[in-house]
């Protein structure tokens, strides 16, 4: 359970909303996208000042010990703002993995740097908890625990302070923290959602600190936390895009009437509203199940996984259609949501695989 009460969470959320409205509006967002990291590093540090980067890190390691519900709340607001920061990797997956390992004490400083906003983590690999795990990955660990090979689609890979490499080999998953001081080659990749700054990383007998002592259950729980947080991020983003669209329907006039008075557009909006609310419910249930260690958490997370993937995809796609020509231009914000939606579709498992996992949990039911 979270150390944060629901009312506290709401207060934190309101502060975050105010901050993002002031510091991460569309203009600042676009300006940040031109920077090396794809976002303004000052915003990241300010998020740290608000205590949000250590939200899931134990108090003992410099965080505030929040639960999946708290991570979801932050992710939803970040999603709404479209800020392309590495929150899920740095503040959810990495700390959860480190804390679950038996080298947490040894990594105390890394955890506290994360919370202070002075370290970001990029994650690559073919283990189920790694973003874009189905992308090219030839990473191998040799007998001396040195890592060689290549992994692509590592988000923000060029500017991270640590790489977290999660490598499936034979029947075992091994996770390593590789410092940016280590020698490895980085090649940034051209992306359809360029703010995410994916990179190919090539290592040759590189050394890292292994996160030992991780059991399969730990790895799975961390994966679920990643998916649940991404789902929350998607709900925030889709709701923002939906609200912008409904507002446009009310203010855009054609044929002497607001286009939102046309029944066909109303009905599309009503159907999208059902999608947005369903995704919100599913994402909340997933975070709640993890926060309360529900035995059916895997089902709730799988559900959120595909419901939110698909809803974000559909809402952002229809948002362009409902806007018409104006959203066919890069100056309009719609395509940014649409690109983010496409980027998240296979970020932590595609919808088909989440559906399969979801059905598996039902088959296992009595």
């Amino acid at each position: 359970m979270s150390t944060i009460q629901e009312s506290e969470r709401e207060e934190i959320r309101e502060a975050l909303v105010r901050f993002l409205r002031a510091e991460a509006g569309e203009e600042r967002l676009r300006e940040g996208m031109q920077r090396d990291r794809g976002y303004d590093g000052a915003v990241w540090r300010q998020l740290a000042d608000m205590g949000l980067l250590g939200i899931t890190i134990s108090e003992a390691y410099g965080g505030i010990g929040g639960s999946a519900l708290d991570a979801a709340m932050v992710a939803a607001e970040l999603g709404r703002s479209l800020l392309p920061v590495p929150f899920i990797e740095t503040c959810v997956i990495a700390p959860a993995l480190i804390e679950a390992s038996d080298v947490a004490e040894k990594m105390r400083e890394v955890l506290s740097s994360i919370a202070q906003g002075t370290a970001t983590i990029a994650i690559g690999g073919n283990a189920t908890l790694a973003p874009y795990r189905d992308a090219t990955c030839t990473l191998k660990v040799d007998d001396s625990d040195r890592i060689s090979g290549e992994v692509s689609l590592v988000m923000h890979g060029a500017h991270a302070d640590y790489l977290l490499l999660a490598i499936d080999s034979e029947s075992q998953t091994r996770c390593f923290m590789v410092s940016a001081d280590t020698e490895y080659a980085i090649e940034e990749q051209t992306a359809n959602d360029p703010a995410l700054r994916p990179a190919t990383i090539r290592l040759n007998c590189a050394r890292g600190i292994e996160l030992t002592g991780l059991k399969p259950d730990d790895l799975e729980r961390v994966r679920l936390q990643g998916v649940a947080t991404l789902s929350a991020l998607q709900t925030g983003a889709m709701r923002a895009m939906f609200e912008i669209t409904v507002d446009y329907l009310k203010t855009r006039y054609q044929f002497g009437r607001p286009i939102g008075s046309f029944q066909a557009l109303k009905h599309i909006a009503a159907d999208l509203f059902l999608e947005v609310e369903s995704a919100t419910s599913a994402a909340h249930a997933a975070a709640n199940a993890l926060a309360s260690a529900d035995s059916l958490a895997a089902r709730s997370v799988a559900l959120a996984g595909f419901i939110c993937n698909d809803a974000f995809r559909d809402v952002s796609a229809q948002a362009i259609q409902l806007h018409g020509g104006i959203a066919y231009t890069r100056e309009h914000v719609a395509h940014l949501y649409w690109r983010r939606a496409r980027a998240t579709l296979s970020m932590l498992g595609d919808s088909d695989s989440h559906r399969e996992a979801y059905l598996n949990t039902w088959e296992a039911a009595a």
Partner: protein
Amino acid sequence: MTQFDTDASPEALRVAVLSWLDTHWDSENRRPLTQPIYDRRHWRQQVLEAGLAVPSWPSEWFGLGMTSAQCKVIEKAFAERNAPGTGLDRYHLGAITVFKAGSDALKREMLPELLTGPICCLLYSEPNAGSDLAGIRTRAERDGEQYVINGQKVWTSNAREADYGMLLARTDWDAPKHRGITFFLFPMKQPGVEIRPINQITGESEFNEIFIENAVVPERFMIGNLNEGWGSFQTAIAYERLIMGQGITGRRRNSATRSRPPLLELAEKTHKLNDPVIRQRLAQALAYREVNNLNNERAMTEMMTKGSMSLMSLSKLAMSRIQHGEAAIATDLLGPEALLDGPDNSDAANTNFDAAKAYMNSIGGGTDQIQRNIIAEKVLGLPKEHEPDKGIAFREVKSGTGPGTTG
């Protein structure tokens, strides 16, 4: 004044109700202690006299002035003893409408009657007033101290059993459509009322058509004022929606969300559970049901905590895709067998029934299209369309079969 104290603790209230029940009700044989068999009117009379039929209503109107939480305590106590008869302030649409919208005289005369015996049916829809319910053409014409009714109603359930119908009839053809309607408590058991069951595509006949020819209703059975029936009707509908909303929680609690769903069993039985295409469709169907349950939970929370009804409106629309979607999958699972029907082929019969019955949700009580309008306009705040029948005399409204006066 009564033995049930509104200031008592929930537990004290429970004890008082149980104690009253134990002196009046034989919970084992499910009958009043004073009666050899269960007689509905007799029992209801006893419950009514104790104030327990409509506990939320004030004591001057047959109730106890209890809060909604206290009513739940009472309902639970009745349930503990398997006793019927309480909660009519939540379920008896006729009585609720009369209580909310009727004159004091009507309430005094009819509430004791309605709360103890008669079943009420709803005489709302007409062949030409479906989605457009306010477009009714059944006419009520004054004749001394009564009104003479002529017209046709449709989609009425319980018509044959009903003693009274909640009747919407047009009393002013020169007013705009919402402003010429009067609401009546209409006696069903009289000459001039013909009831014909509707043969539904499911094979059921739960609904009826009602043909009304020169039937009468006393003026004092008017609910609310002349030509203000639409407002009274809205009161009734609001209660109906609340009851449906409460139905949602009931269903949620009862739905065994953690046991294996029937559709999955059918997939296994038809040896298609390993078909990857079917698996994706199954997962999506189960998901639609689960997110609807989750939405309903959030809807209840939001209604309780913020008074917001916006999520409430989604469930009916969502049920359409759930029901039509599940029936479509079941049909495909059965394959050729879906052609069959009847008691010898229960999977096929159930599937075909479900496929037809799904239209009950997507058409009945407002089509999916009307429901989307409501969501878009009432929840999202999108602007209304032009309404050609707004503000003009109803007799001038186009009906496709000539002007209103012929209706």
